[in-house]
């Protein structure tokens, strides 16, 4: 074999290796989100950690029905045994004070990704994100807190679509999210930072999609604690009693606007309150007189 032929064969092999390497790579550099992630609360601390105030519906595209659910909600509802260990829904879980662990399930033979799995420290909630293109279950299949999720790559972003959700809340002060809702989550990894953009679509209680972002930082030393939860009788109350405020009887709704000097109308939320131009409108609204001390109704 002459030198010319040897060069041609070597060149062909190099080209084949290059093509092979390209074929083995994702179309665009997919950013595998696997790993241990610790939450950062720079965004929405008040809502996520101390918890939202009663009657604070600002910035949420709720409809009138959701508003009434919120107004009727009594925090004592969470005391009921049936509700003490109830997990956050898939669309809300990212917001909790939760460490996050993500790992990949791979088919051994093909090395294709079958699924990503997530574990949140709050309630030990686990979500499976199927990457193998399986169809969603029929409408008569069960709904769960985490729902049924499929994932697709959009460039370097993992886009998760979730259906079959159980009813849950859109904010932890009684604003509901129905079991007819779906959600999507967009996982954007930039090196050691992960941003999750979660969007809730609820034809029952939201007039527009509701989008929230949550940030995490990679933490290889993170140790995930278990979440053992056992319901107990916290308050002695008659069986079957459901704590709730009767229509028009919630006396706590003015605490939030009074304490923060926010117009009552604005605290009632709705799609309009999501957008920056609403701040201009707010300036024309009356506020309740600020109390000398923070108002807390007993």
């Amino acid at each position, binding site marked *: 074999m002459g030198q010319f032929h040897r060069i041609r064969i070597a060149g062909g092999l190099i080209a084949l290796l290059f093509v092979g390497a390209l074929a083995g790579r994702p179309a665009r550099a997919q950013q595998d989100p696997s790993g241990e992630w610790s939450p950062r609360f720079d965004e929405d601390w008040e809502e996520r950690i101390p918890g939202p105030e009663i009657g604070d519906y600002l910035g949420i595209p709720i409809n009138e029905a959701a508003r009434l659910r919120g107004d009727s909600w009594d925090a004592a509802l969470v005391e009921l045994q049936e509700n003490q260990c*109830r997990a956050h829904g898939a669309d809300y879980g990212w917001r909790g004070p939760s460490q996050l662990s993500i790992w990949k399930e791979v088919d051994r033979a093909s090395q294709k990704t079958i699924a990503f799995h997530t574990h949140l420290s709050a309630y030990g909630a686990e979500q499976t994100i199927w990457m193998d293109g399986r169809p969603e279950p*029929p*409408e*008569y299949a069960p709904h*769960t*807190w985490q729902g049924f999720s499929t994932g697709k790559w959009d460039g370097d972003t993992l886009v998760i679509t979730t259906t079959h959700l159980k009813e849950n809340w859109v904010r932890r002060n009684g604003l509901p999210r129905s079991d007819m809702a779906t959600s999507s989550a967009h996982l954007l990894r930039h090196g050691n930072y992960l941003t999750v953009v979660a969007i809730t679509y609820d034809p029952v209680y939201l007039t527009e999609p509701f989008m929230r972002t949550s940030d995490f930082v990679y933490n290889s030393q993170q140790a995930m604690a278990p979440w053992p939860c056992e319901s107990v009788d916290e308050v002695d109350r008659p069986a079957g009693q459901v704590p709730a405020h009767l229509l028009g009887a919630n006396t706590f709704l003015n605490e939030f606007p009074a304490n923060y000097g926010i117009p009552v109308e604005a605290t009632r939320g709705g799609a309009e309150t999501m957008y920056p131009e609403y701040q201009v409108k707010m300036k024309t609204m009356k506020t309740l007189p600020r109390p000398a001390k923070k108002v807390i109704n007993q």
Partner: protein
Amino acid sequence: MMPWADPVTKMATNLGWAALLAIAGAASLLAGPAYAQAPPAAPVNVEVHLLHVQGNVWMLVGAGGNITVQVGDDGVLLVDAGLAGTTDKVYAAIKTLSDKPVRYIIDTHLHADHTGGNEALAKLGNTIAGGNVVGDIGASAGNQATVVAAQEVLDRMSEPDGNRPAAPQGSWPTETYTTPERKIYFNGEGVLLTHVPHAHTDGDTIVFFRRSDVISTGDIFTTTGYPFVDMAHGGNIQGVIDGLNRIIEMAIPADEQEGGTQVIPGHGRQCDVADVVWYQEMVTIIRDRVQDMINKGMTLEQVKAARPTFDYDPRYGKTTGFWTTDMFVEAVYKSLAPKKEGAGQ
């Protein structure tokens, strides 16, 4: 065949399942009890589907009310039988699970979307009988499946109701119980029937498969709308709430308050106790609101105008069909309002 039976079949064929359910319900409300009608003879063009729930238990959807199918070495036990006219498809689906005969049908209540298939399905099965039973009664003792229900179901199906004749005798329960509970051991597990008086109707039964850990609720619990309180047949909102509380008491959830005991509703998707809790909270909150309005002296019209269901209407409310939000509010009001002196039950 009753004069309107054929149009029902035709409409079901043309309009699909939602229309059929609405018609079945409308029949029970407007035209008297649907069970009193001759069932549509022609097969209804519907699709039935099976979903494995847990253990020995499957859920069959699409034949009217949900049908629970328990299979095992002893045979097949059904909770409810769906609409008449769906039997061929229901039976074909059951045969994909088991070659054994249908031994039991348990009726959760009297409505035709749950009992319409009683006669045809029972005839396709048989009862294990022998010894003195066969000796005394003859071979007919075992020539159909046993149809079990609370006594009130037989009482209502076997009597004319208004202008309507009694249901065909072949569709009646063959074995009734009058106690708070009835126990059956079948396919290696205890099956507990609990009577919930005056709930959806006066003859409601909740069925608990103890080893499979599955509860069939009948129409005390559905995921498709506000509870249908059939006051004409002994229903009452407080009984519905009692029934929901009973289901919550019986069920044991797994982690995060979900999974564990599975729940098959009368209509709608497979559930667990967390779904029942949301529903029970909704019904209880609405009851409490209406009770508060009654206590304040509000009339039925004033209560309706105050819209005590407003926040749940986008999910459960209906303005058309056989069971509207208005009718639900009225049933809650009438369940709770003090009875006028001299008024009958």
